[in-house]
């Protein structure tokens, strides 16, 4: 290995460059929050509470987002309820029961699924899912359609997170179980899954956050009617879809209201992220 001469100026320059990069990265987040706050400040000050009302009639100056907040929450919660159990059980089954020939291709498939863009899921939902639901319960574009598509989207990462969590458990727990001739199911249920639970929960919380923030897929299959749904077959509009739909022609106060919903979204994300961090013991999530 060649010895490079000590060049204090180059080193100092490098250090400052590095510090700048780090600052820029952190500043982007600050910048986003600042811009949102700056745009929405006066509005929030004068009529902040009004956004939690029910009537969304921008033409008349009414910016009640309650129905859309509900739409976002309902669609995401149902998706989570469908995806999380499947993801966790499948991950455990793949690790401890599946034949090796099945495990590898399945995991590769799941990784591929994780990378498929949301528009593509939305397209499929629009082409196949919505008409199918329409046969049983028109109009088809609905809360259920949105949740089904979202469930497919969050499942891959939830599964991969569970797989990583199980992999990081001390292998001696499984071995002790084997030496005692315990059933693998018993050891999974009582020792392994509880041991991995904090990491799994943390990952699931993050995926819930992702579901809340999803735009394109729900935009394409949810029907986009601003209303409180009475059944899973009713169309809903999420906060995110609302921004995407109306931003193009919104002006003035209407536009500011959309920024407010953006602020809401990033705040909820921050809360969920804090929760996920707490669950993992203040470490960042593995990639």
């Amino acid at each position: 290995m060649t010895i490079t001469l000590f060049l204090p100026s180059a080193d100092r320059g490098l250090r400052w460059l590095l510090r700048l990069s780090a600052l820029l990265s952190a500043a982007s987040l600050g910048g986003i929050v600042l811009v949102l706050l700056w745009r929405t400040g006066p509005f929030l000050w004068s009529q902040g509470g009004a956004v939690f009302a029910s009537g969304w009639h921008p033409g008349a100056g009414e910016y009640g987002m309650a129905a859309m907040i509900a739409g976002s929450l309902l669609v995401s919660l149902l998706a989570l309820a469908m995806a999380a159990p499947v993801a966790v059980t499948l991950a455990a089954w793949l690790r401890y029961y599946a034949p090796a020939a099945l495990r590898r291709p399945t995991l590769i498939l799941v990784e591929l699924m994780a990378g498929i863009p949301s528009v593509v899921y939305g397209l499929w939902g629009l082409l196949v899912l919505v008409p199918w639901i329409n046969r049983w319960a028109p109009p088809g574009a609905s809360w259920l359609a949105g949740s089904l598509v979202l469930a497919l989207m969050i499942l891959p990462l939830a599964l991969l997170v569970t797989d990583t969590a199980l992999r990081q458990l001390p292998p001696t727990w499984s071995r002790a179980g084997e030496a005692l001739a315990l059933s693998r199911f018993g050891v999974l249920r009582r020792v392994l899954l509880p041991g991995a639970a904090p990491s799994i929960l943390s990952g699931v919380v993050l995926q819930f956050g992702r579901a809340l923030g999803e735009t394109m897929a729900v935009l394409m299959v949810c029907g986009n009617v601003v209303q409180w749904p009475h059944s899973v077959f009713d169309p809903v509009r999420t906060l995110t879809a609302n921004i995407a739909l109306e931003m193009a022609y919104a002006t003035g106060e209407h536009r500011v209201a959309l920024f407010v919903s953006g602020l809401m979204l990033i705040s909820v994300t921050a809360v969920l992220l804090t929760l996920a961090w707490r669950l993992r013991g203040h470490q960042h999530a593995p990639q």
Partner: protein
Amino acid sequence: MHRSDRWAAVLGLIPWLLVVAPLTMMLAALWQQGQGVLSLAFLLEDPSRAGRAGGIASLLLSTGWILAVCLAVAVPVGLGCALFLSEEVRPGSATDRRLGFALDLLAATPSVVFGLFGYQFFAITLGLGFSILSGGLALSLMVLPLMIRSAEQALRGVPLSYRRAAEALAVSRWGWVRRVLLPNAASGIAVGVILSVGRALAETAVLLFTAGYVLRRPDSVFDSGRALSVHIYDMAMNVPGGTERAAATALVLVALLVLINLLIRRLVRRPFSGVVR
């Protein structure tokens, strides 16, 4: 074998089917819709009649430009930040945690919010309007956390023994980074770049408000340009009779992403940990 294990082994096929079946059905449906339109001409022709006819050549060009702008910002800044983390910050320290949280939050922020910010800051405040530049810059913010994390992992993965040797020989920081650290971490950093490309290709909402919708070939980065993902959305939702082309574009996009995934696998050759029996 315990009875419970036998049940578990068999019942596990149910979640497996629940996952694999929809995915294959989805790809099959897209293929069915789009394959009639797919051809080399599709890739080489520009769209016409608002996208109802022709191909996606101009879109591929726009997408490429947007990616280029995105990477031109995200890779240097991301690498710089990753170097900062690996050289100056102790894992687990307060700085590490705070920066880590900020980056995680950036990574988790919804795409629309980036769209709003990009629109307000890049398009309006900086006066870039609907352009590839706006889109690329906004996108670079989105892939930055991913780039940083991957690069950081690669850098921290360089063996400690090399570092100790360099310290003992009083090698300068710049020399250490340039001659030992970066070359050793190069493949991991490349993976980070490729992952960022994958993420960037998949994004739509942020581009709706920044890069715009224009179908024709962009003349420069200041022109508006339509990315592949935005095209899929437009064809599916706004253009009657556009579903076939939407599906075809989706197939092209998925194919690109699969290629990227394979490329990553080549570079990393991640071993799958053994099954516990």
